[in-house]
């Protein structure tokens, strides 16, 4: 019964979305305030019904109701509770229900926080939001119904894919979807602006917090996924340039560009047309990601062709929204007024540079991901595009961007003075060079370019700190520095943290890539191996029985200079229901950020194959992402975003003639 209620609630949500997609926009066109006022309550109602629907599916999973096909295929009565809950979105149907739930949540939040938006803009935004919602409700209901029943209910379920039974999975997809779907707000604002044919700096201020929030979630989601892959898969890698990862990286790159271009629009009323286009592209890439992952097209073009219902449906959604919005853009963008002027060397110029390289890097990921599919679909030729391609294209495109990054925030709006910036950054530059030389000296014989990578990390992180130091006059007037620091807008701190995070990320990427130590060997109990500065002894192998798996565990004692510093127990699990083995890595952190990483392989030659890695500074990769996300969150609490955009108030216009008199 509860399951049927959930199903019916989803249908009702679709009905409300249909109302929301027509009446408010009709209201905008007919200038009818009553029709426009429909948008907010309906958006809340829509979210309410989706929430009921989602709760119903969650209940079915928690209660192990195997008469529901989705639960039968992805759950097991013995599965730990956390994975019964995360299993709701650990499958196609459930994850699409999560997708629409988050979409409705964002719509409801816009309705809630958008009280001070102009009525026409709010109505148009919620209307456009509902178009997207209608398409995806139809997709779920027609092709991916999570509430389908099985006539003869089985006694036991098939269990969730063991690799997905991990705390990382519990949070990774919701974070990622909050990011993906969050960009739909920027999209709706952009399309609403095109429909209204009006756009100004206030528009940018309204859109920015939503873009920022989506970006923060996407950053966390990608980082979480990367760390999950790192510890779960047992190869010690953290980024694989897999199409699925690329699908999330593309909206991130475009979203990062959007964040920066909307600053220009907000502060200087410039780059309007480009910002609108970027908002459309960012969400289009989110849709593309959904298509790539959900249609099965990545598995193979043929699999897609043999069971095309879902794929064709999402492709239809993709074509409709991307094509429709770009057509609207082409028709209306010319009508948007062009804004402020600026010299090439200026803050605006630096942000254009940022957008240029981020867009090109995004294009590299885009073409690398889609070209093999296109080539096979058109000519039947099969090629592979893997990590080496992306490292040769994406890598070089990132370097100029990173080199210029610390300079941008120092430049003045409209017309910057490069010489003055050079004077301010001279110390940072010298430190970065010295760091490069010192690293080269300390790691002679190692990878040649790695010291430059460390220098780049110093340049980025110290450059970010220097900008704040100069703004609060830390060195010139230390006595007032603290007061100035408190008074500094939170967005300035946010930008600093965002850029600092990139610096930390670079340290991690460079150190892990250049100086990691890998040992692949067969070990027998009692044997000791030296890895980096540690001696690892395999003391015993034992078997243990878990709730829904059996495991073989290798017990390692780690010693440094004879002193025991850690005990590590990598394991291999065998899940009973799916008869699937998984690797449980064992990781110990030293020096704050470096990790010793053990993964267990097959038994061979009377021992067990072990992969042992020493990964210097590897945690900085994710810590850098975390700092970036914190920067975004801090920026989100900035006063001007809390207060909201200034209304073009009547008081001001009324006061003006009075003042003139």
């Amino acid at each position: 019964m509860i399951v049927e209620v959930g199903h019916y609630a989803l249908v009702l949500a679709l009905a409300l979305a249909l109302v929301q997609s027509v009446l408010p926009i009709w209201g905008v066109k007919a200038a009818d305030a009553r029709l426009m006022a429909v948008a907010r309550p309906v958006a809340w109602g829509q979210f309410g019904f989706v929430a009921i629907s989602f709760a119903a599916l969650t209940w079915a999973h928690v209660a192990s109701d195997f008469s529901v096909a989705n639960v039968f295929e992805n759950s097991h009565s013995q599965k730990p509770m956390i994975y019964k809950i995360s299993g709701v979105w650990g499958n196609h149907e459930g994850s699409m229900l999560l997708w629409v739930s988050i979409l409705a949540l964002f719509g409801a939040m816009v309705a809630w926080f958008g009280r001070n938006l102009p009525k026409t803009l709010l109505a148009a935004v919620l209307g456009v939001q509902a178009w997207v919602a209608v398409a995806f409700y139809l997709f779920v209901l027609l092709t991916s119904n999570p509430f389908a029943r099985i006539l003869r209910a089985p006694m036991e379920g098939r269990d969730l894919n063991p690799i997905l039974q991990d705390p990382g999975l519990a949070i990774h997809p919701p974070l990622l979807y909050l990011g993906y779907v969050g960009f739909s707000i920027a999209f709706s604002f952009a399309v609403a602006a095109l429909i209204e044919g009006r756009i100004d700096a206030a528009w940018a201020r309204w859109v920015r917090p939503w873009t920022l929030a989506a970006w923060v979630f996407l950053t966390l989601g990608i980082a979480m996924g990367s760390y999950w892959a790192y510890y779960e898969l047992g190869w010690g890698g953290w980024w694989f340039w897999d199409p699925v990862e690329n699908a999330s990286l593309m909206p991130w790159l475009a979203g990062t560009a959007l964040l920066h271009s909307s600053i220009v629009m907000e502060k200087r009323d410039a780059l309007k047309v480009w910002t609108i286009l970027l908002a459309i592209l960012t969400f289009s890439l989110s849709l593309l990601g959904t298509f790539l992952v959900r249609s099965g097209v990545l598995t193979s073009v043929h699999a897609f062709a043999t069971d095309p219902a879902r794929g064709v449906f999402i492709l239809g959604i993709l074509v409709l929204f991307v094509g429709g919005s770009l057509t609207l853009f082409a028709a209306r963008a010319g009508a948007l007024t062009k804004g402020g002027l600026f010299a090439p060397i200026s803050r605006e110029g630096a942000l254009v540079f940022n957008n240029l390289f981020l867009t090109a890097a995004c294009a590299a990921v885009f073409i690398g991901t889609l070209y093999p599919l296109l080539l096979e679909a058109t000519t039947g030729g099969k090629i592979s595009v893997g990590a080496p391609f992306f490292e040769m294209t994406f890598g070089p495109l990132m370097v100029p961007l990173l080199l210029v990054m610390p300079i941008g925030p120092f430049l003045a709006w409209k017309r910057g003075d490069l010489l003055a910036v050079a004077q301010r950054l001279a110390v940072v530059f010298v430190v970065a060079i010295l760091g490069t030389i010192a690293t080269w000296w300390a790691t002679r014989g190692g990878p040649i370019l790695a010291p430059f990578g460390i220098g780049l990390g110093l340049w980025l992180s110290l450059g970010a700190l220097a900008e704040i130091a100069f703004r609060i006059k830390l060195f010139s007037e230390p006595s007032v520095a603290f007061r100035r620091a408190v008074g500094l807008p939170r967005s300035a701190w946010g930008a600093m943290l965002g850029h600092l995070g990139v610096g930390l990320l670079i340290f991690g990427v460079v150190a892990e890539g250049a100086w990691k130590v890998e040992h692949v060997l067969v070990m027998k109990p009692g044997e000791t191996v030296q890895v980096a500065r540690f001696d690892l002894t395999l003391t015993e192998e034992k078997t243990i029985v878990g709730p829904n798996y059996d495991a073989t565990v290798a017990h390692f004692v780690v010693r440094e200079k004879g002193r025991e510093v850690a005990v590590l127990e990598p394991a291999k699990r065998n899940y009973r229901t799916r008869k699937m083995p998984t690797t449980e890595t064992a990781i110990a952190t030293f020096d704050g950020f470096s990790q010793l990483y053990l993964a267990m392989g097959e038994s061979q030659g009377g021992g067990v194959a072990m992969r042992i890695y020493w990964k210097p500074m590897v945690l900085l990769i994710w810590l850098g992402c975390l700092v970036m996300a914190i920067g975004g969150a801090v920026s989100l609490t900035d006063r001007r975003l809390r207060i909201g955009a200034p209304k073009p108030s009547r008081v001001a216009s009324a006061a003006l003639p009075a003042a003139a008199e």
Partner: protein
Amino acid sequence: MRATLARRPLLAAALLGWALAVQPLATGVAVAVQPDEMLKDPALEARARAISSELRCLVCQNQSIDDSDAPLAKDLRILVRERLTAGDDDAAVKNWLVARYGEFVLLRPRFEMRTAILWLAPFAVLLLGGVAAWRTLRRKGARASVEAPLTEAEKARLADLLDR
């Protein structure tokens, strides 16, 4: 930068959670390159690893043979090591594999007619974007010059008009 830092392990198919929902892989066990496959000569083994990481496991999803645990990947790893031990250079090993399995085996496609778009597109976007940005800036610059201070002749004419 990253590309050239060092030989990075070119790791395999990412299995981000939600992907697995549609593409359950056979196994998540990390076996990849096995101790008993590895060559005694460290220099030769390092070359074998570098080559392996650029070759696709043909039956896997976007995994290199260095990372894959599929039996085919194991065969290919052993083949690569046999060719290297026989004295082939890196390019010869790759050519030999391409001859047997086609271009599909290379994770870094060669630059040729049908992959030209792939390799050039990112830089073409940069170039076109750069030109567009430059033109926009110049047009704006031209518009700015309209608002530039008046010339001496204009000032004289303005003064003349105001005096009248």
